[in-house]
């Protein structure tokens, strides 16, 4: 019990105070239908869960994020490893990465919709786009952080270049890859909401947009809180898995 408290007590207290401040603010400071208190939002959330609407929007957004995120990470990893390991590859691909990563994914929404329509294609494209460059950059940075002696040791133990790539560069870079993925996940949230706001038939972003159209303020808040909680949970999961599975991987020691 004491252990549980020391681990999660702070979080629990933080969340309680967050909702308390929100509650007090909406009742006594702003006091408007445009800023509903958490109790009202929670009630609305229960209604939306019962009717299945929330779950429909939530699963649509999660699906898009996961598909784009996994595809983007799987593409980004080998490209980042190759760019970090081989100079000519880096020189060749840097114009792409350094040019494209400064065009925000939000700016690509219009193009994505023109190319892939308002269905899943455009959303997944945008999530891949927002994921891939961060994963590439972090992976490449991880490769250059590898202690030279790790590579030299492998060379003088008889490893080939391909073996060094697979057995030294890849595992040594794991923490950087995961950090890149964690950052990319945060960006995916921004991107998916923006994309769904503009063009989608369902999703948490679409829910926000409908809320504005039909003045369903409570729905807007349900969507916002869901996004926040989902992001928080996913990020904790990432941190936990980095800590648990990748603790022993390190480029330096």
């Amino acid at each position, binding site marked *: 019990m004491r252990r549980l408290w020391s681990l999660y007590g702070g979080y629990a207290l933080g969340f309680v105070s967050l909702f308390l401040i929100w509650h007090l603010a909406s009742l006594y400071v702003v006091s408007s239908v445009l800023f509903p208190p958490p109790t009202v939002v929670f009630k609305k959330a229960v209604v939306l869960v019962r009717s299945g609407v929330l779950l429909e929007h939530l699963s649509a957004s999660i699906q898009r994020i996961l598909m784009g995120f996994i595809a983007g990470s799987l593409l980004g990893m080998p490209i980042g490893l190759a760019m970090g390991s081989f100079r000519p590859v880096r020189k060749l691909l840097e114009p792409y990465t350094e040019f494209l990563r400064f065009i925000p994914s939000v700016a690509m929404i219009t193009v994505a919709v023109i190319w892939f329509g308002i269905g899943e294609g455009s959303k997944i494209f945008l999530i891949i786009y927002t994921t891939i460059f961060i994963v590439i950059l972090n992976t490449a940075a991880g490769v250059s952080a590898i*202690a030279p*002696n*790790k590579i*030299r*040791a*492998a*060379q*003088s*133990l*008889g*490893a*080939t270049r391909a*073996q060094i790539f697979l*057995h*030294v560069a890849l*595992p*040594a870079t*794991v923490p950087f890859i995961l950090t890149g993925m964690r950052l990319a996940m945060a960006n995916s949230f921004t991107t998916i909401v923006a994309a769904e706001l503009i063009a989608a038939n369902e999703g948490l972003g679409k829910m926000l947009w409908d809320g504005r159209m039909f003045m369903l303020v409570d729905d807007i808040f349900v969507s916002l809180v869901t996004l926040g909680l989902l992001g928080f949970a996913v990020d904790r999961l990432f941190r936990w898995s980095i800590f648990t599975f990748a603790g*022993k*991987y*390190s480029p*330096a*020691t």
Partner: protein
Amino acid sequence: MSTPLVSFRDVEKTYRSLQGVDYGAVEHFNLDIEAGEFFCLLGPSGCGKTTVLKMLAGFEAPSTGEILMDGRPVTGASRDRAVVFQGDDSLYGWLTAIENVEFGLRMRHVPKAERRARARHYLELVGLTGQAQKYPAELSGGMKQRIQIARVLANEPTMLLMDEPFAALDAQTRSLMQEELANIWQTTRTTVLFITHDIDEAVTLGRRIGVMRAGPRSQVKGVIEVALEGARTRTDDVFLRYYKQVYEMIRDEVATAMARAR
């Protein structure tokens, strides 16, 4: 004398600094190392000892001159020349002690059962049988250096290159490790090039000691043969005589190195 295993022939290595100034680490560097000998290369800090080792390891190429091993020029890293590094950053933190020791064998696709057995044998040789399943981060500095030694021995190289492998260890651990290394060398008789700046260490381990001049543009000033058989004791008269002989040869070089650093 038979043909040496390794020969440095008029080797020169020049580095260029970021400011574009050339710095000659070694110049007209000549050295022969015989098969099966334990050769200590001793010199003041900054004299280019590590440069010599890196060139022989194949990590860096000489600017001019050549390095021959078994009569063939050294062109890159190879499993003939295994390296034990000074720090512990060459170990693979995601592999257990025994997996680190197996690394070279695994790269050569030695079957799992055989490489396990060989890795166990060498872990036993360095006294780490009980630590086989631990990760490097869980081991002390001395243990990590033992893993490095087991890792290179398991790969059965023609020669070992050791770059001040015990420099970062505390005094007690260091002298224990020197003793163990001396014993291991007695059993394996692998050719060793051992880099150090510690006279005591050189006299304890080396069959021959090459003393280098102060850098830049360093060379071997002289080579002293240490005719001490069996275990060496620091308080032994003969040991002290060799210590003094080496000390006298290196003293001026250390003074020069310090003066140049000022």
